[in-house]
C-alpha cells in the first residue's frame, strides 16, 4: 500500500511539473482519455487472461484466513542462503550484470550437483541456462522450441501455466489425464496412472513435445522408472521432445525415488529438465530456476533468454551457488538440505492426512511435493445458491474462504474442460507450513469439519 501511494505521489508530482511548464498538459492523467482505438491485444494472448493465482491469492491475503492454498513455504529458508545473499549484495561488482546465460559460480555449482546425479558431465556453459524461476525455463523452452501449429502433450492434472504457455507459442495443448485405478478408492498418488494406449493415441505427426511434471503438482505423484520408460519409448518412437518439470525433485518421501527421464536411454538428447532454487531452498521469492539439456536444445532457450530477460539477478545467483556448493559436499548425509527438507515435510504430510481422514474425508497421500489433494464429496456441501458456471471446486473454495476462513486451491484449475468432471470434487492443500500454522490450521479445520458433519446430520 505504501509503495502504491508513493507511485501515485510521484505521478502527481509529474503532473505538477507539467502544469508549471508552458506546454498544455491538461490531458495528463485525465479520466477522459483519448483512446488508442485500434490498439487491442496481440493474438498470442487471446483467451489467456484468466489465472487461478491472480484470482485467489489476493482474496486469501486477508490475514484472518488460514491459507493452505498457494504453494509457498512459511517455514524459514536455511540461514546460510540468506546470509550468502546479504554477503553477495555487499560486494559491489556482484550488484552489476553477470553472464547472461547464468552466473559463472552458479552454473559451475549446478554442473557439479547435477553431474553427480546424472552420472555424466554437464557442461556449465552449454548445457545449462539460468532463468527467472522454473516459470522462466518453461517459457524459454516453449518460445525456443515450440512452433505455431505444433501439438504439445500435457499430463493432467498439470501446473496451470503449461496450457497458456503452449497456446502463447501458437501451439495446441493435447491433454491426457492421470486416472485413478478403477474400482479402487484412491489413497495415494501412486494409485493414479497413465493409460499406455490412451497416451500412445495422443501422439501425432504434429507432436513437438510432451510435458511431464514429477513429482507432480498438484497430485504429488512420483513417476516410477517403468512409467517414465513408457513415456520415453513413445518420445523416441515419435521423435518428440520432453520437457520435464522437476522443481520438486528433492521432495520425495520414503519408499519412493525421483527418477530423471533424461537419464533413460535415448532421452538426454531430447529432454529439457527444469529445476528451481525456490523449491530447492524454500526461497520461492528468489525466482531462479534452470534448464539442463543437450547443447543443441539449450542454445535455443539461450536465444530466447538473450532477447527477453537477458540476465538473472547477480547477487541471488551467487547466493544460490553458495547454497548448492555447501549441500553438494553433504550429499548423502542426513544434514544435506536436499534430503532433510523432505524428512521434515513427510511428518507434516502425515499429520495433515490423518486429520483429514479422521474428519471423514479422503486425502490422496502424495509420494512427493508439498501438496495434497482431498476429496470433499463426503461433506455433501450444497452450493446451488452460488450462481455462475464455475466448477464445483471453484465454488467450494470461494465458499470455504468466505464462510470458513480457510483457503485452498480448486483442482480443476489444473485440468482441461473435458476432465473437469473427474476432478471437481477435489481441492488442493499445501503443507509446507510452519508447525504453529499447521497446528492452528488443523485445529481450525478439524473443528470446522466436525461442525460440518454435525450440520450435515441436522
Amino acid at each position, binding site marked *: 500500500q505504501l509503495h502504491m501511494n508513493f*507511485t*501515485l505521489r510521484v505521478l502527481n508530482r509529474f503532473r505538477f511539473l507539467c502544469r508549471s511548464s508552458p506546454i*498544455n498538459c491538461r490531458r495528463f492523467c485525465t479520466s477522459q482519455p483519448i483512446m488508442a482505438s485500434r490498439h487491442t491485444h496481440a493474438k498470442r494472448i487471446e483467451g489467456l487472461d484468466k489465472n487461478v493465482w491472480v484470482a485467489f491469492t489476493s482474496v486469501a491475503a486477508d490475514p484472518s484466513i488460514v491459507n493452505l492454498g498457494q504453494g509457498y513455504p512459511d517455514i524459514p529458508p536455511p540461514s546460510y542462503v540468506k546470509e550468502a545473499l546479504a554477503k553477495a549484495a555487499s560486494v559491489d561488482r556482484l550488484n552489476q550484470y553477470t553472464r547472461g546465460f547464468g552466473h559463472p559460480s552458479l552454473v559451475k555449482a549446478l554442473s557439479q550437483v547435477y553431474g553427480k546425479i546424472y552420472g555424466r558431465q554437464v557442461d556449465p556453459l552449454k548445457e545449462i541456462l539460468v532463468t527467472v524461476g522454473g516459470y522462466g525455463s518453461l517459457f524459454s523452452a516453449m518460445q525456443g522450441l515450440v512452433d505455431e501449429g505444433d501439438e504439445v502433450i500435457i499430463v493432467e492434472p498439470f501446473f496451470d501455466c503449461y496450457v497458456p504457455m503452449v497456446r502463447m507459442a501458437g501451439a495446441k495443448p493435447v491433454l491426457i489425464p492421470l486416472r485413478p485405478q478403477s474400482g479402487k478408492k484412491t489413497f495415494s498418488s501412486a494409485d493414479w496412472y497413465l493409460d499406455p494406449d490412451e497416451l500412445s493415441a495422443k501422439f501425432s505427426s504434429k507432436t513437438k513435445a510432451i510435458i511431464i511434471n514429477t513429482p507432480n503438482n498438484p497430485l504429488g505423484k512420483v513417476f516410477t522408472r517403468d512409467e517414465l520408460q513408457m513415456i520415453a519409448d513413445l518420445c523416441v518412437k515419435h521423435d518428440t521432445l520432453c520437457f520435464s518439470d522437476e522443481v520438486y525433485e528433492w521432495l520425495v518421501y520414503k519408499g519412493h525415488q525421483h527418477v530423471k527421464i533424461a537419464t533413460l536411454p535415448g532421452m538426454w538428447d531430447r529432454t529439457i529438465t527444469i529445476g528451481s532454487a525456490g523449491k530447492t531452498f524454500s526461497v520461492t521469492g528468489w525466482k531462479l530456476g534452470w534448464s539442463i539439456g543437450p547443447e543443441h536444445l539449450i542454445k535455443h532457450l539461450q536465444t530466447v533468454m538473450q532477447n527477453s530477460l537477458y540476465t538473472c539477478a547477480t547477487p541471488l545467483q551467487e547466493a544460490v551457488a553458495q547454497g548448492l556448493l555447501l549441500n553438494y559436499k553433504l550429499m548423502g548425509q542426513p544434514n544435506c538440505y536436499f534430503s532433510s527438507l523432505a524428512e521434515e515435510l513427510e511428518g507434516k504430510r502425515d499429520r495433515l492426512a490423518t486429520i483429514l481422514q479422521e474428519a471423514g474425508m479422503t486425502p490422496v497421500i502424495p509420494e512427493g511435493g508439498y501438496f495434497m489433494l482431498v476429496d470433499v464429496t463426503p461433506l455433501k456441501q450444497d452450493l446451488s445458491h452460488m450462481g455462475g458456471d464455475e466448477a464445483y471446486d471453484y465454488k467450494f473454495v470461494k465458499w470455504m474462504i468466505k464462510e470458513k476462513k480457510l483457503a485452498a486451491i480448486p483442482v480443476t484449475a489444473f485440468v482441461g474442460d473435458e476432465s473437469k468432471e473427474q476432478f471437481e470434487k477435489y481441492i488442493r492443500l499445501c503443507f509446507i507450513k510452519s508447525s504453529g500454522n499447521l497446528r492452528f490450521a488443523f485445529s481450525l479445520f478439524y473443528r470446522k469439519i466436525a461442525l460440518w458433519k454435525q450440520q450435515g446430520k441436522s
Partner: protein
Amino acid sequence: MSNTPPTAPPSSTASLSSGSELGPPLVRPLPLPGISSSQKRRQREKKSEVIIVEPFFDCYQPMVLMAGGTGVYVPLRPKEGSTVLSSGDWVLSAEELASKITPRTKAIVINTPNNPLGKVYKIEELQMIADLCIKHDLLCFSDEVYEWLTYDGAKHVKIASLPGMWERTITVGSAGKTFSATGWKVGWAISSGNLIKHMKIIHQNSVYHCATAAQEAVSHGFDREYELFGTPESYFQQLPSMLHQKRQKLASCLRSAGLQPIMPEGGYFMITDISSVKVDLNDKSTEDESYDFRFVKWLIKEKGLATIPVSAFFSPEHSKEFDKYIRFCFVKENSTLEAAEEILRKWSQKE
C-alpha cells in the same frame, strides 16, 4: 477506468488491491525483471511495423523480429552545416520520420536519454513525434532507463506527459540504472491500464514474479529518494554530478588524442568521431568488416583499450553512414578512467 481492485501476485510489494484514498489507481506500475522483458511484451502481430529510432539499443531489433514484426529504421543525424559537438546536435528529420509511417505501423520506439549517443530529446522534438503518433494512432514505447542521468541542465521530458500521449505510451524504467545496481534486474513499465493489462497477461505466462527481496530493496531506495527529491542529498542529483566530472575528463582526454567526442547530454555513454585519426588498420583478418569494427579491434590490440563500434547500433541499411564512431562508457571507477587517460595521452604524444 474500472473501480475493481486489480489483483496481484503475492510476491509484488506494490499492493495493487484497491485504489487508495486518492481514488482508483491512475497507473498500473508493473514490476518487471529488467527492461528487456517489458519491451518484448509490447511487440505486435505478424507483419506489424515498429519504427525504431537509430542508433538503438541493440535488443529492440531482435525483439521486434521475435514478435513477428518488421523493424523500420529512422536515424538521428548530425545537423548539417555546423560543428557537431553535442548529442543535442543529432536530430530526427520530421519528414523522414513521417515518410516511414504506413498503415501497418503499430508503434515507435524511442530511447531518451539515448544509448549510445546520449541525446536527451527536447520537448519540441518529442512533440513532433507525439503529433505523428496521434495523427496515425500509433503506440509509443519510451525507453527512459537513463532518465535520472542528464547533464548541463538538460531536462528529461516524458513523452507520456504530452497531450494525447498517456493512453498510447508505455514508459520503461530501470532500478539497475536508477540505483547503479544493474545486476538486480528490476525494471518497470508505466502506462494506462488499457495497455498494462495486456502486458500483465504476458507477465503471468512467462516469469509471473520478480524477486521479492530485490523489489523490496528498490522500494526502500525510492522511499528515501522521494523524501530527498530536489535536495543535494538526492542520489538523483549526486550521481549525475559525479558522472558529469567523469564525462568532462574523458572528453578532454579524447580530444587531446585527436579524437572528436560528441558530448552526451545524458546517460552512461559517449561516442567519438574517429574519422580525423589516421591509423594503419593493417589487419587482413578484419578487411571485410566496417571501419569502426576494425578500428575497435585495432584499439584493443594496439592500445589495450576496449570500446564498442557504433554501427552495431544501426540497421544494416544505415550502418555504413555511421561507421566512423566508437562508444565509450564513462561510468567507471576513477582508476579505470585514469588508465584510459594514460593510454590516450601516450597515443597523442606519439603522433
